């Protein structure tokens, strides 16, 4: 029958472009129930605007925001995409070996005061008896600036998005802990997707078959990227990285973030994270709603 067009807002620097590229090269393309139109976007905020204004059907974002928006009446829903999240990185020869060593150091934080990783890192540190808020000199800034400041040695450690961390790692920097590690430290061991596809539920219900086919196809594409070198080679130009070490590191971190969607345990873990973040941010990140909004996660069936 007719193919349903799906317009996807793709951040130029993001990973969803890789998968869409893989889909594009897939020989099955012609027989699918959907077609994909990628819409380049400059940053995450542009995606949110594009989705709300109806310029795209899907973007990549996080579920806490989706829950918050649902609480205020928006009809958005989320499908898990990846567990890859930011990491705390220090120079290779840094004396910092653990969170406790951050005391008295300059810590660069991308994403601001309500950054999830920062909130959770503080909670973990507290558990270990360290008050990061008081003992660390915080430097907030845009991710590329934080990255640059670390390279220049103007800050001692950086809590930044995963691909900045991966690129640094390839250049000999050390990861102290990443988002997954922080969650584990806080007792949440189930893999919970950090980011995922976000779309309007009404729209998805109207095109259920196509949406689900698309989500399946993306999952396959992801697996291909990790298992088939030819597919991977196609996206290498999109990495904007010339050296093999960086390319490999990016692939490694990307592939380790693959999640299987759904599962009761995952949902429950998400509930716990939600409540944790709500408390840690004093409602500011999550909004007033006491619990994760029902329907936040889209289920494939």
């Amino acid at each position, binding site marked *: 029958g007719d193919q349903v067009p799906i317009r996807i807002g793709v951040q130029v620097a993001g990973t969803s472009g890789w998968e869409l590229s893989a889909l594009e090269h897939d020989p099955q393309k012609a027989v699918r129930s959907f077609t994909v139109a990628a819409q380049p976007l400059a940053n*995450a*905020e542009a995606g*949110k605007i594009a989705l*709300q204004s109806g310029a795209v059907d899907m973007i990549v974002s996080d579920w806490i*925001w989706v829950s*918050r*928006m649902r609480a*205020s*009446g*928006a009809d958005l829903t989320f499908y898990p995409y990846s567990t890859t999240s930011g990491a705390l990185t220090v120079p290779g020869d840094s004396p910092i070996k653990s969170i406790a060593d951050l005391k008295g150091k300059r810590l*660069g934080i991308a994403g*601001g*005061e*309500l950054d999830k990783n920062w909130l959770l890192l503080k909670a973990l540190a507290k558990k270990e008896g360290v008050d990061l808020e008081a003992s660390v000199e*915080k*430097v*907030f*800034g*845009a991710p590329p*600036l934080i990255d*640059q*400041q670390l390279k*220049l040695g*103007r800050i001692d450690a950086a809590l930044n998005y995963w691909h900045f961390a991966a690129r640094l790692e390839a250049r000999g920097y050390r990861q102290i802990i990443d988002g997954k590690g922080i969650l584990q430290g806080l007792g949440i061991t189930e893999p919970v997707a950090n980011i995922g596809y976000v779309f309007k539920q009404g729209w998805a219900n109207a095109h259920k078959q196509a949406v689900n086919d698309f989500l399946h196809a993306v999952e396959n594409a992801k697996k291909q990227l990790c298992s088939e070198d030819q597919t991977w080679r196609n996206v290498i130009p999109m990495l904007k990285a010339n050296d093999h070490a960086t390319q490999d590191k990016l692939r490694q971190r990307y592939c380790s973030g693959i999640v299987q969607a759904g599962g009761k345990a995952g949902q429950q873990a998400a509930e716990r994270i939600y409540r944790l973040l709500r408390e840690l941010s004093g409602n500011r*990140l999550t*909004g007033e709603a006491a619990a994760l909004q029902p329907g936040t996660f889209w289920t494939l069936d």
Partner: protein
Amino acid sequence: MNRLQKFFPVLSLAAFFAIWQGLAFSLNSTLLPSPLMVLGVFWLELISGQLTYHLGATLVRLIVSFTIAMLLGSAIGLALGRLKKLDAFFDNWLVIFLNIPALVTIILCYVWFGLNEASAILAVVINKLPNVVVTVREGARALDQDLLDMARCYRMSRLNTLQHVIWPQLHPFLMSATRSGLALIWKIILIVELLGRNNGVGFQLHLYFQLFDVASILAYSIAFVIVIQGIEYTILKPLDKKSQRWRR
């Protein structure tokens, strides 16, 4: 008629809010919260102390960078407007600095001078300065030569000439530089705070932007507008009035 005119400012504000309320009511969307909702958020942020803290941080930056940019810009603008040779030489630079994107100066300031307060203010000044220069330069070019000659002939001191002959003529230009300057600095400061500060209204706006919380964004915007209205009514309007009182 004159009686009624006194209430115009109040009436116009009422009209503004009425239109807003009407739109919000008819759209009924989280993307345009009603004035009352915004007021609620405003109030919560105010009593939590967040608003005062961040607004205060932004205002300190605004005042410092505005003062520097206006003083320096007026001096340079006056010099370029009066000295043809200086102008011929530096005109190119002016166009360059006027049109270097804010993003570029901000990034470079942060990268070269660190993510600190001084860089932030420097970045704002660099962005605002050329605008002041360009405006004051136009004013300086249009100065009345007859009056300047009079001042020279009567051996008025430089200071007196500046204060009593030149300044009043530049006044409309300075007022326009001030009004659009506050607005421009505000736009720049938001980017500056967004990219490299951990407080200030820009920082907050970015936060709420990430959350797409329009009500909070509007609450902070209104807080700033209120401050500027305060400056209007306590400083700029009286200045306007004083400077206009000699007109028939």
